[in-house]
């Protein structure tokens, strides 16, 4: 099935063969590492710039505005201009801050989001590392960013930052559970944590359709909990501009602030990509059971297009949340997680295990 989808491992394989002809195997590995790193850096920067631009346009549409429209056609270069401004801005040293931790925090946050990108399958055969514990790995590295946020809040020597960081700590640690449990639902269906296996298992239909209502519940819980985990509205308590001015990154300026900002957007991309991969089939085209002709037509759309379309669909939903809902209060946030989402997820897992046991899913 889906044999006519272009496999990117052909491309990477031919690059590898070409390099092997030029140099010894040690150098080949080194060159390939550098190449992959460069590709990811480029992807990271481009996606970051595009997401910021997209967010500004989406929120403008929701708010009856036009959005950026002065720099370049339709304001396309606006985010690049902003980036240049941030690069040129002075890095203000904070008196009585802890300089080492203060400077380290933005890097921890951005490295965590960078690490998670390595395990995502972007298209058929296009995946940097195919861990056999892929879901677990992405969860683990993306939750490391809370360490960076806590360090940022603690080392800034600002009371607003500290409150923001503490809020963020409580929030991320709580919502991690729901994200994990909702992903576990699909892991139970698939029987594997390997992201490529999860995608392959959706060749005859995406899990959100195949998994009956429990999979859909998992998807909704995943959306809510992952929005909270990446500190976006309506769960942006860690930043809460009307309460804490800017929360944990109040004291950061210039490129260090840009790192936090970029990491926030890339985290949004990562959770959306993970959601798309696990629930909506990743790069797998829209297939319906045994409809060979229909499935064949769907295969003509390149797999990368499927992946990014699904990812941006989830990103748009998350943006839609942010620009229409008011912010929750910290106790309401924790109530939502511990009293509603977590019990529902636990019950859902049991239900799914039962379904899988009885073999009721497709």
């Amino acid at each position: 099935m889906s044999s006519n989808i272009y496999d990117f491992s052909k491309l990477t394989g031919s690059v590898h063969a070409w390099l092997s002809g030029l140099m010894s195997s040690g150098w080949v590995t080194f060159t390939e590492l550098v190449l992959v790193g460069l590709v990811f850096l480029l992807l990271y920067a481009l996606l970051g710039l595009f997401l910021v631009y997209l967010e500004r346009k989406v929120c403008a549409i929701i708010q009856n505005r036009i959005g950026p429209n002065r720099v370049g056609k339709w304001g396309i270069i606006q985010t690049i201009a902003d980036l240049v401004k941030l690069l040129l801005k002075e890095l203000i040293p904070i008196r009585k801050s802890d300089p080492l931790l203060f400077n380290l925090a933005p890097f921890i946050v951005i490295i965590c989001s960078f690490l998670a990108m390595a395990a995502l399958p972007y298209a058929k055969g296009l995946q940097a590392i195919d861990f056999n514990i892929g879901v677990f790995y992405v969860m683990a590295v993306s939750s490391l960013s809370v360490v960076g946020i806590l360090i940022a809040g603690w080392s800034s020597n600002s009371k607003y930052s500290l409150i923001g960081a503490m809020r963020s700590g409580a929030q991320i640690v709580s919502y991690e559970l729901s994200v994990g449990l909702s992903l576990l639902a699909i892991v139970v269906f698939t029987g594997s944590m390997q992201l490529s296996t999860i995608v392959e298992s959706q060749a005859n239909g995406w899990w959100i359709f195949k998994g009956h209502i429990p999979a859909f519940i998992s998807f909704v819980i995943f959306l809510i909990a992952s929005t909270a985990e990446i500190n976006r509205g309506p769960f942006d308590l860690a930043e809460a501009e009307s309460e804490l001015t800017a929360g944990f990154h109040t004291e950061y300026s210039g490129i260090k602030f840009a790192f936090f900002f970029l990491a926030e957007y890339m985290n949004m991309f990562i959770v959306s990509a993970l959601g798309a991969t696990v629930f909506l089939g990743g790069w797998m085209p829209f297939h319906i059971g045994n409809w060979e002709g229909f499935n064949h037509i769907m295969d003509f759309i390149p797999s990368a297009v499927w992946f990014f379309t699904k990812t941006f669909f989830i990103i748009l939903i998350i943006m839609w949340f942010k620009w229409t809902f008011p912010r929750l209060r910290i106790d309401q946030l924790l109530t939502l997680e511990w009293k509603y989402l977590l019990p529902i997820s636990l019950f859902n897992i049991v239900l799914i295990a039962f379904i899988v046991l009885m073999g009721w899913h497709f």
Partner: protein
Amino acid sequence: MSEEIIQDVIIGESEDYIINLGPQHPSTHGVLRLEVCLKGETVKYLNPHVGYIHRGIEKMCEAITYQQIIHLTDRMDYLSAHMNNEAVCMVVEDALQVEVPERVKYIRTILDELNRLASHQLWWCAFGMDLGALTTFFYGLRDREHILDIFEESFGSRLLHSFNTPGGLMHDVHPNFQKRIKDFIKYFREKLPEYDQLLTGNIIFQNRAKGIGYMSKETAIGYGVTGPSGRGSNFSCDIRKIAPYGVYDKVQFNEILETGCDTFARYKVRMAEMWESLSILEQLVDNIPEGDFTAKMKPVVKLPAGEYFRRVETARGELAVYVVSDGNKNPYRMRFRTPNFSNLFVMNEIASGYKIADLIAISGSLDLVIPDIDR
């Protein structure tokens, strides 16, 4: 500033976790400083510090004529500029026993209500923003723009009107005045339900607003909290009803009272007041009588020696003007009882014990305009 001096300034116990909200803070809507003592996320007590935008308006008034004072009152509660102007005008007219033409009274009342609407719209924008719903800001401003356009057409300025003068108006309104107001009423009757759809019905919003910032009727009266904030605590304090001025005695309208006493009650009062303002405008806009736009006044206004007092209902509550005159062209003493000053100081009473996010919601629901507090 050395460590010891900083310690001295802070009131309370040394282990208290004190943060200063303001003077530069996104949700104090101006240069207000709230010294907030926290226990975790909970507010233990708070201490408002005022004076960051004190310009000495009351003292300045003693050196200038009554016509000039009008222009200073704009700068107190800039969102109720017209009501502030009217209060001073009415004091002078009372003192001189000038009967202003009916046309002036009608136009003043219409402008009062338009101003109240514009102010409530801006409050709605800002209140949503305080709670993190950023889209409200643009919805509110979109509609406020229509009112400001009406103002601009008639008297050239959008925010600080200074359109009143003792005895009447500076000049007549623009010929389009009535038509544009009618257009606006039609437009805004369609748009106002959008406000409810976007914010009022939202479950997160309701959870954030309900049961927060309980202000009993006794507290409201005790602190002199007037306007929509007071009426949210069932405190009947609408000057338009108690001591009608302009043509408020000729129109049918309800004083909105809510018994909820919380942030949501204050929210509902303002939302209902927008509907009331629209209905007042509808009753008045077709009935503006023809006539002069000002009574006959002497070029130099001198108030007879004595004390004069007048109060109006601004968008935020009761504004009282007290003038002591010694017979000169300047007042001997001028005193403004501004609504926001009283509304601010109830904060410690009603915000203590709630979370810091609730503090923002409560200060938003009191609809404070900081230059009005300091004057």
